[in-house]
């Protein structure tokens, strides 16, 4: 099973500068564990206290995973996952 994961600039330090990597997993949670095995440190940038970080957006085939089960979102071969940090702030 191959899932393409698009990596944002700020996390490319974990992927040796690669914009996209391939991962494996039947759920987003499993995919992130697989990414962590090959790119140590990346999981902590995506997950906090067992849930997706509030200001990290993850999309599966253009759907925000928050609307399709979060970390439990199911994945299949050929899916495309995009990770984008929120663009946000406040005074």
């Amino acid at each position, binding site marked *: 099973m191959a899932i393409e994961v698009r990596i944002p*600039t700020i996390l490319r330090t974990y992927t040796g500068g690669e914009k996209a990597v391939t991962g494996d997993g039947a759920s987003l949670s499993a995919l992130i564990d697989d990414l962590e095995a090959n790119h140590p440190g990346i999981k902590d940038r995506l997950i906090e206290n067992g849930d997706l970080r509030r200001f990290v957006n993850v999309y599966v085939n253009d759907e925000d995973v928050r609307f399709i089960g979060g970390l439990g979102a199911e994945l299949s071969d050929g899916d495309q996952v995009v990770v984008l940090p929120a663009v946000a702030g406040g005074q």
Partner: protein
Amino acid sequence: MLTIDQATYDAIVAHAKRDHPDEACGVVAGPEGSDRPERFVEMVNAAGSPTFYEFDSTDLLQLYKEMDANDEEPVIVYHSHTATEAYPSRTDIGLASEPGAHYVLVSTREHGNNDGPVEFRSYRIIDGEVTEEEVTVVDALPSN
């Protein structure tokens, strides 16, 4: 240093004034590695708040796909402060995730929706370190 053309500068200021008292936000995209802010993209503040801004998650994906397809990157990420100075807040610094971008802050606290000067300042925000930079406004960006 940030070099920006007058029309883009004016568009950022106009957006900030129009959305006051809520924070306005957006990007100016440009060719990767060029440091040229060429394509002004106004974003909706999904937080609709005077003290917080966040790009809508669907719009954010759309924007990054467009930039990817055009070999662009966000050269400027801008937002407004409506009651405080044009300086990155602790939240702004903590959430800044484009180390290559110029973070432009506009403060509308003095004149709100009305005509009048605004504070327009630019920063680099890298690993929690804020460095203010000079802003140069030109009639048009120099040709390549």
